[in-house]
């Protein structure tokens, strides 16, 4: 599987559009000309019918003009198919890689109560079967580990080569078929039905095999279909009017555009194809496929397009504190001394006592002492004759005995007890500092020392803080501007939660959250008509994931969680929820922008085609030919060519999505209207004129 990074590099290298990609997809594009499948796209289906019609006319009354128009009409349909084929092509490549992971492995099934081992093909495994997998073997199907612990290589699915630990019980018990056990032995209970494994579903998803139109896509299709009907009527009903007008202005000579039988079939079809919203009609399904694909590039699998669309509408984001908003572990943020102790003394003692503490918290103290107090990090070997006291869960403190000096650091209660046990009397200000830190949501660690046989004394307190990830505040501000409320979910007490919520800049928090609380919060938000997105990994998250409108399950999570959510994040990065929302929005914006562009294009096409058709009988109408196009035939052909080329030109935009910068609704609308509305009016005037400048030299056109 390609990593997102590699993909984005390829995009840059490919410039606007990699021609190779187009070429590779051409056979698929031609296959899609089959009317049996094309009718699903009413706009392009009409173009195809028109192309067939002009082909017949061109055969009956051949002319350069007729054949060129016919060719470009066919190209219009092919270009539309090409857009879809290119979008699908990316998914197909992805599916290919996945299929390789799905090689036919043999499973070692354990049968009966006495667990007799037998070999069966992986495909024959049933729900509830028990299999055993050892180092070097491929896990035959999705399941939960019920015995043992193993490191597993999941790169086949996630693209991440670092192995992950899978163990029985808890939230890391899920294993995926097709991944490889690297060490140890596990017993797995299969949780999938044959042919419905996670990989099977992934393949189906990225291939878009059973891609269904999303609600918004359906609505847009209805609008496009009605616009198509309106233009169909406008063009079809023009004919009797044209015949009549030609009849009364009989002096005008017959031309390739207009004769006694009215507007010629070729021109009528050209006008229709130029007017109906072919640009958006051609790119609509590519936009949808590409939206899903952009998620896949970020290693997120959406189980349905509907979920991606819903992501754009999310009003409330529920974010777990740990790992999403804050770094996974608390870190030293401050050294607070008691009376009579200098900061340097405290820093020295804190560092000494933490040298043997390999926990992330302990490391952070050493780092803090170095960065803030300029204390060089000492290696344990430097201190001759030192006795190291490592941190254990029982003692809840660590430290060192060196040269008759004992230094200890640890949980407040444990260290205070140590001080008292060694004849010291912790002053009351230690207690005050400890309480203050706790109240602010931090974790206090007391540092104490004892020199020789004298009484022990407390030197000060280390303030361990939750560290909010960099840039989170800005992202939440951005969310707020987009109208999305962020709610932090944490198991901490309300005081701690409030402090972190304030620092991170979230709108609200849910403290001491139980799964039931989460569920209640989601339901409450939804009752007010809001859409809720959340991430989760544990089995107890499953109901909430199912209830949320967008539920992103972490790939490291349990299979229950993955089953309940409508997206799976293969990187298990909860921050990604924010990106998912942005992709959802980008998908809708791209549709809206190209619809606007498509309709705005029609204005210029009228200025090209109407004078081309009727200036012969009503010379005044030539005033509408403001582009001063060379001749009626070159004007009509230019419009048709422009109409086809614009589809190809916009394929990269459809695949990439329009540029998305978070902002208020008004600023986004203003920018998009300016670019795609005003731009959509102006661009075709220039494009058609340029094409006309070239094609007027084709014999038989000018």
């Amino acid at each position: 599987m390609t990593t997102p990074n590699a993909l984005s590099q390829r995009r840059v290298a490919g410039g606007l559009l990699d021609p190779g990609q187009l070429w590779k997809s051409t056979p698929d594009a031609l296959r899609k000309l089959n009317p049996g499948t094309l009718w699903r796209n009413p706009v392009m289906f009409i173009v195809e019918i028109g192309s067939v019609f002009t082909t017949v006319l061109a055969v009956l009354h051949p002319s350069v003009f007729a054949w060129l128009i016919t060719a470009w009409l066919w190209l219009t349909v092919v270009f539309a198919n090409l857009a879809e084929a290119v979008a699908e092509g990316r998914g197909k490549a992805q599916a290919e890689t996945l299929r390789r992971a799905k090689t036919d492995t043999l499973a070692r099934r354990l049968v009966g109560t006495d667990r007799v081992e037998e070999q069966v093909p992986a495909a024959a495994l049933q729900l509830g079967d028990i299999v055993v997998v050892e180092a070097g073997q491929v896990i035959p199907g999705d399941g939960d580990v019920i015995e043992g612990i193993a490191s597993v290589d999941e790169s086949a699915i996630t693209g991440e080569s670092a192995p992950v630990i899978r163990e029985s019980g808890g939230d890391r018990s899920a294993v995926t078929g097709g991944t490889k056990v690297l060490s140890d032995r596990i017993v797995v209970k299969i949780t999938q039905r044959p042919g419905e494994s996670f990989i099977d579903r992934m393949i189906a998803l990225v291939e878009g095999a059973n891609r269904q139109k999303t609600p918004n896509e359906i609505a847009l299709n209805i609008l496009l279909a009605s616009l198509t009907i309106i233009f169909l009527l406008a063009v079809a009903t023009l004919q009797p009017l044209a015949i009549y007008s030609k009849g009364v202005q009989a002096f005008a000579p017959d031309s390739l555009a207009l004769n006694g039988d009215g507007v010629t079939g070729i021109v009528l079809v050209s006008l229709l194809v130029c007017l109906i919203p072919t640009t958006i009609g051609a790119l609509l399904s590519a936009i949808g496929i590409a939206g899903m694909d952009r998620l896949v590039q970020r290693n997120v699998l959406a189980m349905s397009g509907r979920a991606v669309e819903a992501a754009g509408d999310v009003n409330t984001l529920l974010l777990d504190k740990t790992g999403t908003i804050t770094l996974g572990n608390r870190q030293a943020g401050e050294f607070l001394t008691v009376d009579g102790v200098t900061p340097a003394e405290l820093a020295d003692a804190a560092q000494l006592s933490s040298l043997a503490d390999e926990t992330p918290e302990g490391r952070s103290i050493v780092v803090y002492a170095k960065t803030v107090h300029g204390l060089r990090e000492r290696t344990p070997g430097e201190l001759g004759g030192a006795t190291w006291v490592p941190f254990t869960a029982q003692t809840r403190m660590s430290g060192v005995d060196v040269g008759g000096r004992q230094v200890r650091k640890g949980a407040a209660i444990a260290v205070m007890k140590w001080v008292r046990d060694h004849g010291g009397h912790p002053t009351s200000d230690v207690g005050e500092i400890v309480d203050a830190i706790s109240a602010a949501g931090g974790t206090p660690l007391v540092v104490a020392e004892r020199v020789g046989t004298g009484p022990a004394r407390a030197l000060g307190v280390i303030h361990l803080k939750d560290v909010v990830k960099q840039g989170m505040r800005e992202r939440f501000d951005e969310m707020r501007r987009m109208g999305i409320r962020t709610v932090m979910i944490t198991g901490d007490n309300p005081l701690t939660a409030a402090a972190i919520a304030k620092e991170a800049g979230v709108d609200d928090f849910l403290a001491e959250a139980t799964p039931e609380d989460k569920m209640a919060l989601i339901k409450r938000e939804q009752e007010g008509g809001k859409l809720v997105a959340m991430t989760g990994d544990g089995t107890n998250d499953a109901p909430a994931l199912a209830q949320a409108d967008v539920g992103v399950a972490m790939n490291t999570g349990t299979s229950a969680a993955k089953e309940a959510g409508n997206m799976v994040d293969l990187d298990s990065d909860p921050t990604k929820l924010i990106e998912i929302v942005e992709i959802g929005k980008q998908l809708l914006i791209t549709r809206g922008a190209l619809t606007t562009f498509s309709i705005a294009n029609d204005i210029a096409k009228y200025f090209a085609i109407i004078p081309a058709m009727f200036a012969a009988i009503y010379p005044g109408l030539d005033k509408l030919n403001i582009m001063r196009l060379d001749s009626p035939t070159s004007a009509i052909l230019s419009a048709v060519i422009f109409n086809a080329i614009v589809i190809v030109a916009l394929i990269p935009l459809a695949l990439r999505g329009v540029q998305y910068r978070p902002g208020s609704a008004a600023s986004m609308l203003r920018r998009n209207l300016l670019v795609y509305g005003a731009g959509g009016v102006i661009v075709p005037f220039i494009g058609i004129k340029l094409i006309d400048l070239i094609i007027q030299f084709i014999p038989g056109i000018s």
Partner: protein
Amino acid sequence: MSSAEAGVTFIASLLIALVLVYKPFGDYMYRTVTSDRHSRAERLVYRAVGVNPGGEQSWGVYARSVLAFSAISILLLYLFQRVQNHLWLSLGFDPVAPDQAWNTAVSFVTNTNWQSYSGESTMGHLVQMAGLAVQNFTSAAVGIAVAVALVRGFARSKTTEVGNFWVDLVRICVRILLPVAVIGATLLIAGGVVQNLSGGTDVTTLAGAGQSITGGPVASQEVIKELGTNGGGFYNANSAHPFENPTGWTNWLQLFLILFIPFSLPRVFGRMVGDKRQGLAIAGIMAILAIGSVIAINALQLAHGGTVPTAVGAATEGTETRFGVSQSATFGAITTLTSTGAVNSFHDSYTSLGGMITMLNMMLGEVAPGGVGSGLYGMLILAVITVFVAGLMVGRTPEYLGKKIGSREIKFASLYLLTTPALVLVGTAIAMGSATARSSMANPGAHGLSEVLYAFTSASNNNGSAFAGISVNTTFYNTALGLCMLLGRFLPIILVLGLAGSLARQAPVPQSAGTLRTYQPLFIGMVVAVTVVVVLLTYLPALALGPLAEGVR
């Protein structure tokens, strides 16, 4: 005061008057349609027709009520005309011919008031008063009722009910239209509009010739003709006739009567959805389109070239000297912008491009401000379509006033958008394609084509004004235009009520910073642009062979 200054004063004073009544009259209408109380007279009506005024209807029942009421109205009005010779005050006229009677019945029930007859030589006073004038009231009330039902769809949530048609109908007639009509008629009589039951007075003129001075209950019909955006004149000459519209200030009053209900209805909308700015935005969209159109038509009429118009300073042909070019042009713009169709000048004689503006006004779908009620619901449909595209561009599933615009809503809105262009274009194409229909045309070429296009545009959009130049009292035109009026009125009404039902069912989406603000200038501008672009794209090919061919040189 020069004629241009007079024109500007006329338009500006009208605008100021409309701004002044927007709030008080809008609020009055809001209270009327949302009140819980029934007056004794209303209760009597409900008991007589067997309606429970407390019960509400789903959109389907509401739509069936509208259709049933209108069907019976058409039938009764048809019979009324067919037996008028047996009735009191028939003035000795024969029964109206079947195809013309059908056309007229449909025309008045659909609020179109297309007239293929001359009132003074066809209809007796009783048919005018008890038949046509009654429909002027009820057809207007139907339009307002449907608009109110749509607004209820936006305002309500999680319900299937959109109101009670019978209650809406009775209240709008009794509490809104009748009181204003009484005041308006009194003012018109004061201005010189006739009001009697005379069958005509024969006089000998100074030159010794005999002349019949017609009379009739004109003022009472005139006022509702304007107030209900009906437009069917008592006389054939309509508001150009001195007995219908005697002076400059009655001309002003007539335009005010035409405009003030459609322009105040957005206030009702704003109040009902609980955000007055939304109402103001809709009124703003209507005003921008209307002012643009009035300015354009005045400019084209006043600046017209050519020998005679240059000599007299403007295109005076077909205008009444007591109104002048500008006030005729303004009347022409407003009557076509509002689905009224009353005329005080001859649109056929307008400059080609000026005449095209009157057509474009109707082609907008009668939304700026449109007919009573129909203008509001038409504009809301356009707003829904615009919201859909604009909503996508801000990255959310589109929503308008907290209601999601999904495939069901878009289906209703798109079909609405499709209906009138289909009727206009197909109708015109058939009329231009059939030799029988073409034989009705008196003018050849581009102008003749404009006349046919105008007729179908007017009928399908329920305007009712005519470009003339074609003999429309033929079986083909009476039938075809009758069908256009019927379908152009009731298909949209069904679709609007369907939309109301589907909106009312939804739970509202809360507003957030990511929500498109549908009252900001940007959105207002976008609706204006969408409306104009869609109309131009739809009709430009046809217009190119009619007024454009004639007017662009």
